[in-house]
């Protein structure tokens, strides 16, 4: 339980820190870089490496490559929806989320199974 709470606090802090950096930067296209910051990875990998060893954490990082490709496809879809169609950001991100799952898991099964 303590580990879960610790993870929650670290994750919340790291994600909030990157979100604040993104808020205060201009132009928005530059601030957007911090929307793809490795916040979850920074909060998780250190803890995982100390609990399960560096090889276990390295395996997670290898899978993260597939997740990052999925992230790229996801944000490209969001960009296209927002700039070409009259759909708001909330629904646009929601409609694009399945692309992250499909691309990430497809790469995971093709390359890392």
């Amino acid at each position, binding site marked *: 339980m303590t580990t879960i709470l610790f993870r929650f606090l670290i994750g919340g802090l790291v994600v909030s820190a990157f979100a604040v950096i993104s*808020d*205060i930067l201009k132009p928005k296209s530059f601030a957007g870089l911090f929307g793809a910051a490795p916040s979850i990875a920074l909060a998780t990998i250190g803890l995982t490496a100390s609990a399960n060893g560096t090889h276990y954490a390295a395996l997670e*990082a290898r899978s993260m490559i597939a997740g990052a490709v999925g992230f790229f496809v996801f944000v490209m879809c969001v960009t296209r929806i*927002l700039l070409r169609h009259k759909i708001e950001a909330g629904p646009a991100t929601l409609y694009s989320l399945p692309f992250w799952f499909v691309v990430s898991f497809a790469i995971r099964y093709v390359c890392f199974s």
Partner: protein
Amino acid sequence: MSLQLDALRKTKPSEYALRFFIGGCVTVATGLIAMKWGPVVGGLFLAFPAIFPASATLVEKHEGKSGGQGRSEKRTRGRRAAGLDATGASIGSIGLLIFALVVWRLLPSSGNTAVLIIATLVWLVISVLFWYVRRRLPRFFFARLLKRRTRTTEYSRSSHH
């Protein structure tokens, strides 16, 4: 590139709390998924767009409020700002991929903290570099295109005379 510190005042405490909560939940969930299905599946979620939907919605809301005349114009302005934010995130995701690559290759042989610091710096440098190149590239191409067009026009004019 500039800092806009008054943006901090625009964000409500509840919006900060929401981001903290989402960040915490996704970090816990990633750990639990890795425990249940192993590091290969768990690792995918290290690049899960956890905070991006909340951030894009906030950008749209704040930028929509800050300018524009009518309701429709405000909405378009907000949507465009969120679109630009997403464009930046697409560039940042290339850096995210390189971050993962650096951690994967270096972590088994080097220290934990050092690898994370190096990988974060690599993410930052790659992302900023790609952002800069993307910003400059269209101008470079347009300048060449314009030059070529001017040359063609001049040539056709001289051949007519």
